[in-house]
């Protein structure tokens, strides 16, 4: 068995062959179940896309949800792991309360209430417990991802009745109940709940509803639907067959794209687009709408390739099939059918646009507002797509080396030669710059250029032993790099089970990698493998550790 550490360290094409040879069988056909690490149950704050998907599923996608939630820290390359750890300051709770209030006002406002409340109250000016119940029971089940107990329902109906009586307004009372439910930790957190495992006395397992949520958020990045909740209620979800049936249904749904989009937006750090602006004098074509379009282009490229075409994940780094708006096409300097919408586009063979890394999103995200940055691009590639960590700069860097001839550098390569000639800088910059320089044919807005400062750009370099001549060849090198597939496997696993990879996960990851290879590196098959792996539902009792997070008061 090839260890994960070895792959990351060695990073040679040879490894890939070895991995494929050794683990050339799928884990759920294996007679040798890997020893699976059982993580603690998690309580995960709902993310903006999860919230938006949930609201859209329950109430329709015309209900407005704020486009940005409070930021969380990325952990092991993923915000989604940060959500399982972030501390909750009062201002965050206040925001969630207001989000819920806004949704409730829209849902129970005069325009939509008749659509969502399945009954007509006796009078809009008085309480109507029966009608309130008819609304609360099904909505509460989807919001809390479990069937509400009769006590709970009774309590919520009481609250609605009291408020309706106080205000002489049935719908307003119901609206306050809905907004308070959406501020409840039952909705705002996605819970792992444990129960005794009847098959393994003395051990615990995820309860049925928690399993339904785990599946639903993994495949749809949204709340479980009625069928999943039924499978939980009937206990089918505890059977292998029941899980398999649900997995097939989930993976075959168009809603799978929601999850793929969210995962790659997270892995590729597209949240940084929320604050990305380019210098309008230096890059006049990169107007305010471009960054959103650029992110959307890459996400459409990804979902099209991975879901519509069931393509090989590695081909994402070479595919020329994409989608463009007229505004984006101007940056690429290609003709498109002018439209406000995205239209399919295939870049020409010698367009220099081969794969995700040569798209405006990656190139402009990992650049400064007014210029390109080989260092940021190199770091972006290594950290987000190869799962390698680039050390931070040392504290007391001596920048005097830059001073000698700072004004005379024509190209970024000339500037960065300084980094490699200074030993204090060289150690880190040799990790980032040689690959980042491969993208120098693209300026800070992602526009192609042959020259910088009049000098022809040399975009050659090497990626962990694989030489390349330019960004297109670098895409090919990334495709060949064993870290590329391993990275997506380990990140997707972490995303599925809500915790960073651990040393104990090596066997699971290696098995998944083998399975991934066997299925032609199709993401949908990888997701199926993950969900059917023993690791997916594996949890243990939490250790009674001392809290390490701050108390809020």
């Amino acid at each position, binding site marked *: 068995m090839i260890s994960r550490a070895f792959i990351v360290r060695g990073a040679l094409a040879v490894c890939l062959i070895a991995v494929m040879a050794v683990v050339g069988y799928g884990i759920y056909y294996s007679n040798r179940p890997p020893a699976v690490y059982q993580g*603690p*149950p*998690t*309580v995960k704050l709902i993310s903006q896309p999860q919230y938006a998907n949930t609201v859209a599923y329950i109430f329709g996608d015309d209900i407005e949800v704020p486009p*940005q939630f409070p*930021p969380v*820290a990325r952990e092991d390359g993923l915000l989604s792991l940060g959500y399982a750890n972030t*501390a*909750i*300051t*009062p*201002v*965050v*709770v*206040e*925001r969630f*309360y207001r989000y819920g209030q806004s949704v409730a006002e829209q849902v129970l406002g005069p325009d939509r209430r008749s659509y969502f409340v399945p009954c007509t109250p006796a009078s809009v000016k008085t309480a109507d417990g029966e009608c309130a119940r008819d609304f609360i029971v099904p909505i509460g089940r989807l919001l809390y991802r479990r069937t509400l107990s009769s006590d709970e329902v009774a309590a*919520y109906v009481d*609250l*609605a009745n009291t*408020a309706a009586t*106080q205000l002489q307004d049935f719908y*307003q*009372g119901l609206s306050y109940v809905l*907004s*308070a439910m959406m*501020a*409840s*930790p*039952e909705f705002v*957190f996605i*819970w792992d*709940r444990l129960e005794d495992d009847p098959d393994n006395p003395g051990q615990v397992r995820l309860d049925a509803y928690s399993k339904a949520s785990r599946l639903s958020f993994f495949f749809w990045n949204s709340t479980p639907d009625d069928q999943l909740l039924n499978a939980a209620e009937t206990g089918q979800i505890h059977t292998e067959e029941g899980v398999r049936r649900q997995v097939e249904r989930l993976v075959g749904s168009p809603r799978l794209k929601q999850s793929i989009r969210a995962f790659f937006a997270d892995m590729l750090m597209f949240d940084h687009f929320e*604050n990305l*602006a380019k*210098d309008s*004098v*230096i890059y006049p074509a990169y107007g305010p709408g471009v960054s959103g379009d650029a992110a959307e282009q890459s996400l459409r490229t990804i979902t099209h390739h991975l879901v519509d075409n069931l393509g090989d994940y590695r081909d994402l780094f070479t595919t020329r099939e994409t989608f463009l708006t007229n505004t984006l096409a101007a940056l690429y300097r290609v003709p498109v059918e002018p439209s406000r919408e995205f239209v399919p586009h295939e870049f020409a063979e010698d367009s220099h646009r081969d794969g995700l890394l040569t798209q405006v999103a990656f190139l402009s995200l990992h650049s*400064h*507002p*007014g*210029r390109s940055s080989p260092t940021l691009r190199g770091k972006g590639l290594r950290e987000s797509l190869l799962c390698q960590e680039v050390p931070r*700069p040392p*504290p*007391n*860097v001596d*920048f005097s080396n*830059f001073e000698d001839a*700072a*004004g005379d550098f024509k190209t970024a390569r000339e500037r960065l030669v300084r980094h490699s000639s200074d030993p204090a800088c060289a150690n880190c910059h040799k990790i980032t710059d040689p690959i980042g320089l491969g993208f120098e044919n693209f300026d800070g807005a992602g526009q192609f250029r042959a020259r910088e400062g009049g000098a022809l750009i040399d975009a050659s370099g090497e990626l962990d032993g694989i030489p390349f001549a330019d960004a297109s060849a670098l895409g090919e090198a990334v495709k060949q790099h064993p870290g590329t597939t391993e990275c997506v496997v380990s990140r997707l696993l972490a995303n599925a089970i809500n915790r960073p990879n651990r040393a104990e996960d090596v066997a699971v990851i290696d098995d998944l990698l083998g399975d991934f290879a066997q299925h032609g590196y199709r993401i949908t098959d990888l997701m199926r493998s993950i969900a059917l792996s023993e690791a997916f539902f594996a949890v243990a009792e*939490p250790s*009674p*550790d*001392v*809290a*390490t*997070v*701050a*108390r*809020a008061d």
Partner: protein
Amino acid sequence: MKKPISRRKFLKGTLGGAAVTVGLPFLEIFLNANGNALASGLPIPKRFGTWFWGLGMNREIFVPKTVGAGFDLPEEMASLAPVRDHINVFSNFDTTTDGRPNICHYTGWVVLRCGTAPSDRSDLAGQSVDVMMAEAIGRGTPFRQIDVNATGDARDTHSFRGRNAYNVPETSPVAFYQRIFGPQFQDPNSPTFTPNPKIMAEKSVLSGVIEQTASLNKALGADDRARLDQYFTGLRDMENQLAYFLEKPEPRPACHAPGAITEEMPLGLDAELIAERHKLMSQILVMALACDQTRVFNMTYSNSFAATVKKGHEKSHHTETHEELVDPELGYQPMVSWYTRRSMEAWSYFVQQLANFPEGDGTLLDNALVYAHSDQSFAKVHSLEGIPMFTAGSAGGRIKTGLHIDGQRSPGTRLPFTLMRVLDLDIDAWGSGANRATNDIADILV
């Protein structure tokens, strides 16, 4: 359709000086004979705030040559001339890594906010000084503290309750306005007060749901239990906020809810844009203070890696600190200094906003204490020695102003320590290791 009030109009109309002029009858009714307290006998509230800018300064053209009163204003802080007598300058105070690594652009401000040098980039020991202040003086207002920035990026804050627990700042003028002066706002000067029945109903439903969920599954790890507790704390704060709106507020003669802001600002870190965002956020903040919606605040002008840019110039502030040549004739990095000067202009503007806002027989600034600082002194080499600091305001006559204090390389943490004691926090020491402060900066005490 309601016509949105343009940003410019808002700037001019409500806060430019004209609209803050309060009719005398109000003053007579609401203030006691001395003008230093409300007629009800309650003192004018004390306020504490912080103001942060990134990437320090150039010592030679920033630090005044003379100490004490009447200090000179070297070119990099020349824009502070209108507020010189309202501020104190603190130079030559040290911040140390305390044997830990110097985590670039992090160690400096973390020490000056919580007194302890971090051991890694996510390390935050305890709470920041503003949170401690908020516990002490922030109760009794709807918002225990308010955090805002001028960068538009919700990650740019220097206020925290511990590791992973940053206070999320307001970044959008529209959202900030809505939060403070939205429909739930109770005008403290309204002649009549009737508790809003909607808020009453809303609060009772919220309380009911909190009760419903209070007995959630406790089979959680300690961390998750703590997070759940945090969440309930937040919900109770929310409950208290609603409760506050149900009580008749004390009259605040200086309070005038500004016209609604409906126009979002564009993204970006161009210095002009930051200046405009800073102005707008400052003005809403000042009115929130005048209306006693909060007593504790944090303003971040730029973050510690300040990526502020000058339009058409390809290098950001941070990049220039490392890459720009020192001009042999000037003796400093001209572009870096350009960025520092913009920061000082904003600081000057901020102090002026408070200083020009009448309250009682003085100004809002008289009843406030603002602590301003950066994360570095000389950013080119990430220097922590002599990180520049200021105070503004006299906290109701409790500290002197108009002074330049030379710290003689004593710990910079002495300043926040002193300020907390000035506002009656009962502490004898603050910070840890070499950054532990035990001595007040006596020169500023009245």
